[in-house]
């Protein structure tokens, strides 16, 4: 074992102590870097199942052999510590292999959402100066439009390149976020910050080690990448990468996860499916649902509780390597996002939560002005308005951010939606905003102001706008359109 840092006594004696099995916390290690984490767990859990999808299955030992091959491929293509490498991979075990290879070389994985359009891909490749992009055979054709870009799809090679010694501050991942201002940018996450973020995901739980996780969230978000992939790996878990959401109904029972990590809208959908078609969709082993991304309703907590499944809401940000707090007393405090994890300092200024700590990001990539305005006295300004009760439980009361958080957990920046519709020559102005539907779910709405004197009728304007709306990726489609 390279690193034997035990969890600090402060966290062991705190409120979390009540919720952690002693044997669980005694085995938990605080790793300084993701590389230290991987080098330890690959030995510690070598024969346990690590990752699986509908085609492949790897134990920790097998995964390490594949990661060593991928590191060799990267090295042969000139990738060194600190170099940015695009990771444009759909949800499958190849993501696990390539991602672990990049971060254990202390290179920087620039995670590109797998649904990106050609324009968005161009933005990512140019903005981050990418020369190499890792992808799968399925997505590789989308990269054909880039001259001179090295596209790697295979790590099938003889050999094994060991990992490179990492420092805590090595930036190993860039995640795209609108942050507080709403402007799309890259958050720089260090090896140390992600290691702390992954550990946070393991704290407060009664059963920690060797759990079975089903991964359906996007890996381009920290909730998917860190809580649903790296936290389970941190403690010898097995992760099933679900590449096709439409197969949930079969793949959850087949894999029988003990944990699901979900945004509230997905949790609600699965609950409805279970109510209508029977509990078989939940599998035979499901005990816990980690839920976050937007507000978790008491109906979700109570609905799953009736099936003997605990729903634990949490709160986190891209900039804090995911989890800031977790609520393990959700039955009694359904509207709280819980207690903060250790190694963080929190303060509240004018109602806004400010954060500092081991899990915090290292700033935004090449955004000097944003970086100045994002911090105050070394604290990151979250843009979230909170209150804290007498026992330290945090409640989100509002936000100052210029983003829309939909009930499916997607964060939408209004200006990026508006720009799409402003390009129509008959549109004077477009306004994207948050509305609620009849069930009080947050929805994306769009108001269009047509130019004066155009020959189109209101209905024709609507039809054109609706056609363009339906051409957007699903989470960027408005569910309400108003023509002024």
């Amino acid at each position: 074992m390279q690193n034997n840092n035990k969890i600090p006594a402060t966290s062991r004696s705190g409120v979390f102590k009540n919720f952690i099995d002693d044997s669980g916390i005694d085995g938990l290690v605080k790793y300084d870097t993701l590389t230290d984490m991987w080098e330890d767990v690959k030995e510690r859990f070598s024969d346990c199942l690590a990752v699986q999808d509908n085609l492949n299955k790897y134990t920790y030992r097998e995964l390490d052999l594949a990661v060593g091959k991928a590191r060799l491929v990267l090295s042969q293509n000139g990738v060194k510590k600190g170099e940015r490498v695009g990771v444009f991979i759909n949800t499958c075990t190849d993501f696990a292999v390539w991602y672990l290879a990049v971060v254990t070389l202390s290179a920087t994985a620039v995670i590109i959402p797998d649904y990106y359009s050609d324009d968005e891909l161009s933005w990512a490749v140019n903005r981050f100066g990418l020369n190499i992009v890792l992808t799968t055979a399925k997505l590789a054709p989308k990269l054909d439009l880039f001259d001179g870009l090295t596209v790697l799809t295979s790590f099938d090679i003889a050999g094994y390149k060991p990992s490179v010694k990492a420092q805590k501050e090595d930036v190993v991942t860039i995640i795209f976020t609108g942050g507080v201002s709403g402007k799309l940018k890259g958050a720089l996450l260090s090896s140390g910050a992600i290691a702390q973020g992954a550990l946070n995901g393991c704290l407060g739980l009664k059963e920690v080690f060797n759990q079975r996780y089903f991964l359906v969230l996007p890996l381009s978000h920290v909730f998917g990448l860190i809580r649903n992939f790296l936290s389970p790996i941190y403690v010898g878990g097995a992760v099933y990468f679900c590449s096709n959401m439409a197969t949930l109904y079969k793949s959850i029972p087949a894999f029988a996860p003990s944990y699901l990590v979900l945004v509230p809208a997905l949790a609600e959908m699965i609950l409805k499916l279970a109510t209508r078609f029977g509990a078989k969709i939940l599998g035979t082993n499901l005990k816990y649902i980690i839920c976050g991304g937007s507000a978790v309703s008491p109906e979700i907590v109570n609905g799953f509780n009736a099936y003997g499944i605990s729903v634990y809401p949490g709160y986190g940000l891209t900039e804090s390597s995911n989890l800031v707090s977790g609520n393990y007393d959700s039955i009694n405090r359904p509207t709280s996002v819980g207690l903060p994890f250790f190694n963080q300092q929190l303060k509240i200024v004018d109602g806004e939560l400010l954060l500092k700590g081991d899990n915090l990001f290292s700033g935004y990539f090449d955004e000097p002005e944003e970086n100045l305005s994002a911090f105050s006295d070394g604290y990151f300004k979250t843009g979230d308005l909170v209150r804290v009760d007498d026992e330290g439980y945090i409640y989100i009361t509002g936000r100052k951010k210029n983003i829309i958080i939909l009930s499916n957990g997607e964060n939408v920046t209004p200006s990026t939606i508006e720009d799409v519709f402003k390009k129509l020559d008959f549109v004077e102005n477009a306004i994207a905003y948050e509305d609620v539907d009849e069930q009080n779910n947050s929805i994306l709405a769009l108001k269009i102001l047509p130019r004066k004197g155009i020959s189109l009728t209101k209905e024709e304007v609507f039809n054109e706008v609706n056609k363009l709306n339906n051409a957007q990726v699903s989470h960027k489609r408005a569910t309400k359109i108003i023509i002024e």
Partner: protein
Amino acid sequence: MDRQEIIAKLKDIMVFAMPDSADAINTCTESSDLRTDLGLNSVGLLYIVIAIEESFGVDLSDADFSDFNTVKDVVDYIKENL
């Protein structure tokens, strides 16, 4: 199963998923837009896909449900794959 029977079953599935939108769903036509007329978001569509699979016995695992825009698109897919 004819188109009317498929639509009736589809409405039943959607009303269960979104009871507060029952009026809009019960009065929808084949040209109704799933998102802007019936208020379905990406997760709602996923529910519909899985519920169709379970109710109609149709395998939708290869369907790209982001291509479903109207009630007609869904009915066509079910009809072709029944």
